[in-house]
């Protein structure tokens, strides 16, 4: 039972890292970026290329995935996305889906359509078990690694957001864009950095996810639904919202499939409908927010 | 105010609205007679718009009740209050941007005449509605722009349409929320004229800061301060009222 909980947490944490960037762009910039998955995929492929062709160790690939997608994010933000901020949501959807289509086809062309597989270092491959009987807790080392990394990230993000000057300026910009700018905060610049960080996180998530979710060019579309669920359920006004939503989703999914396998696919969707009917703006609606 | 021999159309009794711990409206009672010209004034943040939202059903009061023509409407949804004759305009234009003034009015009228579910006939197929549309467009100086999309109209014209829509609903009680706010000088006269020329049988509650309009229009005034009624009376009495003066000019009493 504990093992199931553990697996659910690991899965949820991974979803969190993948989706948090999307939640940030939606919440902060009111921009619907359905191409978020494409950034995640890019991060994944960067890792695959580095590991397969250049034998770069896995641990080094992670920051590389983050940085390269973040840079890509900045480039896209400056050249394309910024023209889309003032457009209607439907245009944004059309635009970002177009981008996703292109990325899928380009990736198929460049990397072929088959599943990519990476070899984790040995120390990540094992498994440790604690306890006995119903309370046995079996932990795959990679999943421990995932939980640790993602928890650190979540904690780090939270720390940056709550304890750094950048964080307070970012929160100020989200709270009240107009007044923040009027008090000398460069809201556009902050948004750009945030967009880059969001893309970078997606890339990192993509890299971390190869082992669990697999990686092929259809990735951005395949997991889009999951990202959107996390964002919708978690709300777009905090870090804790998506984190909680992702964990809930991960645990519910894993536990649901374990205990009632024949209901597997229904659980997540039903849960989402129920939550959204109960709290239409997500679990962590900002008080008095829009 | 002379309420004894006149029919009371709208009355609010002991309205209280709290948001969390904050009391936005504290025990406000108000009544309008048939044909009333009543102004509601008060400094910013006095709770005027909250009061309008309570009356029209956008917000539910925490306490108190509202009667329209003697019927308790406190729990009715907004659109049913409209059916019973209470209509409002908005401080910030709330218009149908992609429709023309003509379409807007035709649609409002057909909804008013209970044609809102008719789907088999074209809008504009009804003689009565068309004629009434033309009258309203004429009356509100909108005839020459009737086929332009509302979002492309001049601000003053949109303000006029805002009131025309309300009148199309043939209100018995009309709540006007700052009708001349933001209207440039050139387009102002037209608007003032239409407000003063509203049909006599309609009871009007006006929220306004423009003293020209208030004093030209109102036969009775209520001063709202901090969510409660400070005083009520005819314009001259209000103009002379020291308490009101204090509120507006900020002698020490104002903050007491």
């Amino acid at each position, binding site marked *: 039972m504990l093992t199931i909980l553990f697996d659910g947490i690991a899965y949820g944490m991974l979803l969190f890292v993948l989706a948090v960037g999307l939640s940030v762009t939606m919440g902060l910039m009111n921009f619907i970026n359905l191409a978020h998955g494409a950034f995640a995929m890019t991060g994944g492929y960067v890792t695959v290329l580095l590991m397969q062709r250049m034998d770069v160790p896995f641990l080094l690939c992670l920051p590389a995935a983050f940085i390269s997608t973040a840079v890509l994010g900045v480039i896209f933000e400056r050249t394309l996305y910024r023209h889309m901020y003032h457009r209607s949501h439907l245009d944004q959807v059309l635009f970002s889906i177009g981008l996703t289509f292109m990325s899928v086809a380009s990736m198929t062309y460049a990397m072929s359509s088959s599943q990519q597989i990476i070899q984790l270092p040995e120390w990540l491959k094992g498994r440790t078990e604690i306890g006995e009987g119903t309370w046995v807790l079996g932990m795959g080392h990679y999943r421990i690694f995932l939980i640790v990394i993602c928890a650190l990230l979540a904690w780090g993000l939270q720390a940056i957001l709550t304890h750094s000057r950048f964080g307070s300026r970012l929160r100020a910009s989200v709270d009240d864009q107009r007044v923040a700018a009027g008090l000398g905060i460069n809201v556009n610049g902050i948004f750009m950095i945030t967009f880059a960080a969001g893309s970078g996180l997606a890339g990192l998530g993509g890299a971390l996810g190869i082992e669990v979710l697999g990686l092929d060019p259809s990735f951005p579309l395949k997991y889009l639904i999951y990202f959107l669920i996390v964002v919708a359920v978690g709300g777009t006004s905090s870090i804790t919202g998506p984190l909680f939503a992702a964990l809930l989703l991960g645990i519910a999914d894993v536990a649901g499939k374990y205990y009632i396998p024949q209901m597997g696919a229904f659980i997540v969707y039903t849960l989402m409908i129920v939550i959204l009917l109960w709290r239409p703006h997500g679990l962590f609606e900002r008080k008095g927010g829009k | 105010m002379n309420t004894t021999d006149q029919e009371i159309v709208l009355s609010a009794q002991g309205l209280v609205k709290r948001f969390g711990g904050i009391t936005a409206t504290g025990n406000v009672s108000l009544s309008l007679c048939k044909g009333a010209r009543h102004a509601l004034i008060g400094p910013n943040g006095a709770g005027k718009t909250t009061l309008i939202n309570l009356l029209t059903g956008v917000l539910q009061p925490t306490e108190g009740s509202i009667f329209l023509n003697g019927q308790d409407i406190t729990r009715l949804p907004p659109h049913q209050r409209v059916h019973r004759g209470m209509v409002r305009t908005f401080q910030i234009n709330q218009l149908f941007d992609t429709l023309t003034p003509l379409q807007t009015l035709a649609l409002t009228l057909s909804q008013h005449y209970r044609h809102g579910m008719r789907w088999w006939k074209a809008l504009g197929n009804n003689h009565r509605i068309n004629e009434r549309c033309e009258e309203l467009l004429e009356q509100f100086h909108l005839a020459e722009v009737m086929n332009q999309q509302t979002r492309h109209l001049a601000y003053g014209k949109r303000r006029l349409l805002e009131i025309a829509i309300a009148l199309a609903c043939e209100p018995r009680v009309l709540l006007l929320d700052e009708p001349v706010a933001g209207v440039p000088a050139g387009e102002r006269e037209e608007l003032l004229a239409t407000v003063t020329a509203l049909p006599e049988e309609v009871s009007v509650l006006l929220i306004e800061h423009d*003293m020209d309009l208030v004093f030209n229009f109102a036969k009775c005034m209520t001063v709202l301060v901090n969510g409660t009624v400070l005083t009520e009376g005819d314009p001259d009495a209000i103009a002379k009222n020291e308490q009101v*003066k204090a509120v507006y000019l900020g002698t020490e009493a104002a903050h007491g």
Partner: protein
Amino acid sequence: MAELLRVENLQAGYGEAVVLNGVTVSVEQGQTLALLGRNGTGKTTFMNTLAGATQYVSGSIQLGGVVLHKMPQHQRAAAGIGWVPQERNIFKSLTVHENLTAVARHGKWTTESVYQMFPRLAERKTNLGTQLSGGEQQMLAVGRALVLNPKLLLLDEPLEGLAPIIVQELLQAIRRITREEGLSAIIVEQHPQTILKISDTAAVLDRGCVVHTSTAQTLMEQPELLNKLLGVAR
């Protein structure tokens, strides 16, 4: 005395609603202007326009010789505008301290000097913006503008809706900032009596135009005029 702010024939508004119809005012170095007018006459729009938060239409704004009206909003703080918005607009997910540090610029006014001026804020350093009372929020809004180390302080209805004792405390503080520290300011108020006492000059807005300018003293001494311009009267 040198002229600090010069606004000429300013037109601005929100979207297509033009609220300011050609406003011309000026503020001298070290002086305080009381900007008066009834509700909806354009006072707040004027302040917001200086801070860059409205739709600018035409006219010019210069602050200490620098052209302001074409400057992006976020650069105006650096140019010397210290804005205290009407609704206070405390950043609600920031603590009191963060509200100050997030925007602070180097200069004479520091978070410490703000805490000295408003000891209540020092006590509530770690509280979130939303947990403050109205008066404390107003103090924080003023403090937040001060740590920008502005040349010109824009106070938009700083006394609105506050308890009398807080009003006094704030008035004291404002008087200290403007009179003793010599910071130039524009103060918007609906209640002229309170504010004229601590101002040098006064301007009255009606329907987006300046309908009266004089020294604060002159206006204060004419209650009839005041009532006509600002009271409940024709």
